[in-house]
């Protein structure tokens, strides 16, 4: 197994959203923004819980069928982690902007949004929800992409190597619960792949924790460096 690609997280860069996060996993980048709970338009209003609206925007072109499919996937994977019943008759908006180009592969008719890109969007969405702090959550969902390179399972696949992506919901320090899986491979490999993906997702979770502690001023790294920006 290889390491995860280098992760980088920027929080709260969009000033008008309640929470936002830009997540880079290697060269795959996604930007997420969360607003809510806000007023819901009457058609969407649910009497007992908040309506979660997810928008996915590819880097180029308008959102097509693929973006809509991803939207549905992310929505169903994130829903278990959100306590939507705590904000009835309201709207929570999640907007995801992919910042890495979709690729044109010979075997697909349309530009394809890669699995890594989906995983990055999922992780960015989670980080944006954590950053917003306005939506109650039951856990955090972290995603990890897996692939095969020369017959070996890797966690930093290129687009051609990737075979699947997994999302796990973590509650405190308990082992993650599988909430999302898209994978193509031999059935016999499933256990192994899922457990590797879980390890990868745990690394993402620990990374988030470290980043948020730093943002809260609770961590001790890099403080000098950041403070210099405020100097007159």
């Amino acid at each position: 197994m290889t390491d995860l690609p280098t992760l980088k997280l920027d929080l709260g860069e969009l000033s008008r959203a309640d929470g936002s996060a830009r997540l880079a996993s290697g060269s795959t980048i996604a930007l997420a923004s969360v607003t809510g709970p806000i007023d819901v338009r009457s058609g969407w209003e649910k009497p007992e819980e908040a309506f979660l609206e997810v928008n996915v925007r590819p880097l180029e072109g308008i959102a097509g069928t693929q973006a809509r499919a991803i939207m549905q996937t992310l929505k169903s994977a994130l829903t278990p982690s959100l306590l939507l019943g705590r904000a009835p008759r309201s709207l929570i908006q999640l907007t995801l902007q992919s910042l890495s180009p979709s690729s044109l592969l010979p075997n697909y008719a349309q530009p394809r949004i890669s699995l890594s890109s989906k995983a990055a969007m999922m992780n960015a969405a989670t980080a944006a929800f954590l950053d917003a702090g306005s939506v109650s959550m039951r856990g955090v969902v972290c995603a990890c992409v897996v692939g095969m390179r020369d017959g070996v399972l890797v966690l930093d696949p290129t687009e051609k190597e990737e075979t699947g992506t997994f999302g796990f919901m973590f509650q405190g320090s308990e082992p993650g619960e599988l909430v999302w899986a898209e994978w193509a491979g031999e059935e016999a490999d499933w256990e192994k792949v899922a457990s590797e993906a879980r390890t990868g997702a745990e690394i993402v979770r620990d990374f988030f924790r470290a980043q948020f502690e730093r943002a809260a001023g609770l961590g001790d790294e890099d403080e000098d460096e950041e403070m210099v920006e405020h100097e007159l």
Partner: protein
Amino acid sequence: MDMDWDFDDEGVQKLTSPGEVITSATQFMRGHGTFVEDNDVVASLSGTIERVNKLVSVRALRTRYHGEVGDLVVGRITEVQAARWKVDVNGHQDALLRLSSVNLPGGVQRRKLESDELEMRKFFEEGDLLVAEVQPTHGDGALNLHTRSLKYGKLRNGQLVTVSPVLIRRRNSHFCSLPCGVDLILGMNGYIWIAKHVAENQKEGEEGFDAEAVYSNKNDDIDMETRAAISRVSNLIHVFARRSIPITDAILAEAYDWAVQQETSPSDLLRADVGDTMVAMVTALA
């Protein structure tokens, strides 16, 4: 029962993650940012744990300002519209300041004329800072502001510092004067205005409502000592905000005295070691 579950072994405050069990629900009550599951109080946010007696809550790291009627806020004009201004107050939406909710030159009772609507930029224009009070909110959650008091209105002669709204506590007066010759306006929305001290008898008076002074865009002369004091106070606020310590005039006055005694320059305060010593000293005194 272990009472220090919000600190790790080294006494450093921990950050909760959603879904993390904080404590037993049979002994504690759940507050904001938590929910109860299987007799446990569980965090529903990422933030720091706060405990008041038996009430346990989680305070989110970064929050937008949720206005309450009567709050004092500092804001910045973002847009001039028909008979109203839009004001950024760090909330979900821009707040509204109606032309009818400001004091216009010519006395408090003066009627608003159509000509006033045409020259709204004479009073406030985009980018201007002001201090105002929150009035009952608009239907869609946007706040209404008013500046119908001589204490409120346009801000000048100072500097704005922004911190998280949770660091500002509600109190009797949000207008404070520090002994170092600096006035402070602690906006409930986390915007803090630090300005040169204006003596009580030199404030723009009710009777001779002086439009020139109230809506002036020009700073008074500010001497070097006051400038140094303002930047020192602003850096102190940055230091406290970095460490999530609530901002009050008492703590700032204390820290200011310490900084002057130690002969630190205003920019030295931003160094982590100086900041740590300062915070340790001041919080030990408090």
